[in-house]
Each structure stands twice: as structure tokens, then as C-alpha cells.
């Protein structure tokens, strides 16, 4: 029974070494992953229409490999402001006039593209 007193410690040590093992293994597969040659530098094009509070196509996650570019064409039925989080780009929207944002993927993560008046999420860009 005495051995059980050490159990909480053993569990914690195990857990911590688990974290250590996993994280130490990461740089190899994380930074070493080469960006597929076909996608690097390629340009993806996507058109989005905003009518009132309805976004067409419905908001979805768009995959964008590091190094490639998303050309986002947005047409709204009202004056608004277009903002791509993380890419730090904004563009004014004039009612009925398509506006184009070019988003080049750099840091892996998920970034939302939204309008401000009203606040709508248009899509999210998953950079991998």
C-alpha cells in the first residue's frame, strides 16, 4: 500500500515527461515539413458576395499553404469595410463594386476575414 503514496508523483512525472517527449519531437516534423512545391507561390481565387447579413458562399475555412496567395474578391450590396485579421490588410467596400484583397500566407494559424458594418465573418483562412 505504501507504494501508492508515490502514485500522484509518478503520474505527474509521467505526464510532464510526456509533454517533454512530444515537444522535443516537434521541431523535426514541424519546421521540417516542406511546403508542397505545387502550392508554394500559387494563387487561389475566391469570390464572396455579401447581401445584407447573408454571406455567399456560406462562411467556411479555406486552406492556404504557407507561401501561396488567396485572391479574395468581395462584392457587398452596401458600403462597408473589409478586414483580414492577421494579414493586417483592410479595404473599403463600395456598394456593388468588387474589392480585391490579396492575402499571402506566412505564419501558420487561422485568420478571420470580416466586414465591420455590420460585423460579419466572411470566411476564415487556415494557413498550414
Amino acid at each position: 500500500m505504501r507504494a501508492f503514496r508515490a502514485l500522484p508523483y509518478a503520474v505527474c512525472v509521467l505526464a510532464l515527461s510526456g509533454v517533454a517527449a512530444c515537444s522535443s519531437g516537434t521541431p523535426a516534423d514541424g519546421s521540417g515539413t516542406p511546403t508542397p512545391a505545387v502550392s508554394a507561390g500559387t494563387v487561389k481565387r475566391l469570390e464572396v458576395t455579401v447581401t445584407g447579413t447573408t454571406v455567399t458562399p456560406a462562411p467556411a475555412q479555406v486552406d492556404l499553404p504557407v507561401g501561396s496567395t488567396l485572391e479574395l474578391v468581395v462584392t457587398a450590396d452596401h458600403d462597408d469595410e473589409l478586414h483580414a485579421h492577421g494579414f493586417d490588410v483592410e479595404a473599403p467596400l463600395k456598394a456593388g463594386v468588387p474589392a480585391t484583397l490579396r492575402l499571402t500566407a506566412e505564419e501558420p494559424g487561422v485568420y478571420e476575414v470580416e466586414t465591420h458594418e455590420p460585423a460579419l465573418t466572411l470566411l476564415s483562412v487556415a494557413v498550414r
Partner: protein
Amino acid sequence: MVVALAPAHGVGSRGDLPLPFAALVIGAVAALLISFVAIGTLWREPRLRDTDGLLLPPPVAAVLDSGWPRVGARVLAAVLTVWTVAALVLGPDSARNPVPHVVYVWLWVGLAFASMLLGPVWRVINPLRALHSGLLRLARVSPDLAALPYRWGLWPAAVGLGTFTWVELVAEENTSLSFLQLLVAGFVAVSLLGAAVFGRVWFDRADPFEAWSRLLGLLSPLGRRADGRWVLRTPLHGVNSLRGQRGLVPTVAVMLGGTAYDGFSANLSWATFVQTSPVPSSLLKTATMLGFFGLVALTLWVASLVSVRLAGEAVRESFTFVSDIAPSLLPIAGGYVVAHYWSLWVYQGQYAWRLLTDPLGTGADLLGTAELTPNDALIQPTLVATIQAVSIVVGHLLGVLAAHERAVTVLDRRAAVIGQVPLMVVMVIYTLGGLTILFAP
């Protein structure tokens, strides 16, 4: 057409990639295995004692006891406070202002990580505590001055934490300068008023950031054992030292529910539903956030109810028992915090230095960090996914162990094994829910 501008909001503009399916499955299987193995094989008598722990080497303990680390931390906190207040009052109302990062990244998330590592640090560096005792000293009155006895337990802290969660996740324009001025002024006013009426105990019990730091700080490996000496111990020892008290259940519900809602609200289908719904979005978000708080409290109480009925006790016992088992949810809450906020903390936390160096928006570079590029080594996708899955599962494991210890302590031997099953079921639900939220943002 494209105009490159500074971002409208600086905080939280980057989210984590969805958890890989493999990590979801491994995490879920591990959580289920841990739970079933725990029921059958764990200890039958209370195991954790407040005399446990590895003593720190005497020189290290002497430094910790000398007071110098506290003085140093207080001075740094005071300098940062003055710096931040200057930016709050005189700084620009733009993304160049450091205040949103200080409040939403350093204070909220950074405090959580610092507390889980070192213990209840906010108690030591809380600038409002210092302001309150300074004012009393100036007025030459006793530091224990209080007009009324305090008797609400953690309830005001739960309300405060819930309000802050709402401010962070629901309120619009929550990074604008006027909003932050109102927020900070309101919080300082309420705190000083509370401390004036109820005395210092206001900070001990009612202050939301002290509660956040103290409860997450129970998970720290650093602590004092019963005789006051510094020891290294398991997170379970800290959690086990917390006794049921008024307001603990709502506080834990807000901590767990708030983080879960944060993850959930990033879901695109949810965003689509909110923005196309005829119901005003802020109303819908507020109601859903409150629903998350309520769901945690309700499921915890139902688990408690089933437990006491299985043990053959009266229904009213469930209200005390729910408070007894609430501390064992703290490791799960801590796991959620690490999983959801790791990348925000290690990335945006660095970015804050770029803004702090120019608090008044004059183009100054007072700290020499204007050109700092946040190091992204700690937010590599594989590392982030690993940390997320591991922290959720470790939180679950510690939660199960803490609940087991509490069950064998509080319930009689016959009822202990069966009595902890309902809580374990609830924990499995929280853990699978937490992993799912990370998998499908």
C-alpha cells in the same frame, strides 16, 4: 484598392489550426482509459496530506522567504501599472495602444499561466491591494479597517469573472480606448468601494483576478506544506487543500464555461448562425455564454445529486457535496486554459512589447522593442496541437485523481467507489467536449 493599414484589433487576430483528428482520438481514448482504470485500481484511503512534498533546498527557500522576490515583483507590477495607465489616459485610440494587450493577454492569460507555475501571484502584486493599503496608511487608519462583515464567499468573484469573460468575448469595441477607460475606472471604483466597506477581505474573496489567480494557482507545483516550509508537490495537493465554500461552484462554472465558450464561438457555423439570425447578435452571444456557465454548474450538481442518492443520503446533501467536488474541476479548467490560450500567450504576449515601448503613440522606442518580431518557435502547429491534447488529457487525469481523493475522504468506504462515478462521467463529457471544440473550430 487594397490599403495596408494597422490592424483594427491587435488582440486575438490569429487562431490555432484545428486539432488533428489523430490527436482527438488519442486524447479521447486516453481520457476514457484513465477514467475506467481509476475507478477500479486507485487508493481506497485518503492519500494526500498537507505535510507531503519535497522540501526546497534551504538557500532557495531562504530567498523566497526573504521578501526580496516579492518586493521586486511588486515594484515591476507597479511600474507596469503606471505605464499602462499612462497609455490608457494619454495614449492613442488605435491598434498602436498597448492597453488591450496588457489587459486581455498579460493580465488575463498571462496571470493564469504565471499562477499555474508559481501559485497565487496576483495576491502579491495586485496594484489595487497596494493602493488600498497606501490610502489607509496615508489616512493613518488600521489596515484592517472594515465597516461591515463580509459574507458572500466567492460569489462576487464569480460575477466579476463572468463579467470580464463577457467583456472579452461578447462586448463590441472592447479594444477601443474609451471602452477600456470605462472598464478600468469602473473596476477600480468597485474594488476600492468594496475594500472600503468590507476591508482587505474584499481582495481575498471578492476580487475576480485574485480568485482566478488563487484557484489556478492551486495547480502550481510550488507550495507551502502544513508547517509553512516551501515544498515542491503535485497539483493534486493544492487542489485538495481547497474546501467547499460559498460561490465556489459558480466560480468554477464561469472559469470552465467561459473558456469553452471562447473555443466554441470561433466555430464558423455558429458565426453564420449568429450573423444571419434575426435576434441581435450580442443578445444571442450573451445568452449562449450564460448557457455555458449554467451547463457546467447544472451538470456538476446533477453528478452530485446522483452521487448522494447512490450513497443513500438525502437530496439536500447534494448542495454541500457539489461544493466538495467542485475543486476537482480546477485541473480540467487549467487544462482548458492552457489548450485555448497557449499560442495567444506565447505569441501575442511577445507582441505586447512592440506596443509597450511607445505607450503614448509618439513614435518613441523607450524599451528598444519597437522592432521585436515575435518568435514563432512556440506556435508551430504540431507543437500547439500536442500541447492542446496533452494539457486537456493531463487536466482530465488530475481531475479524476482529485475527485477520487475527495470521494474517499468525504464519502464512506462503501459509497466512495460508486459515488465518484457520476462526477467521472461529467468529467469525461467536459474532456471530450473540450477536445471536440478544439477539433472543429
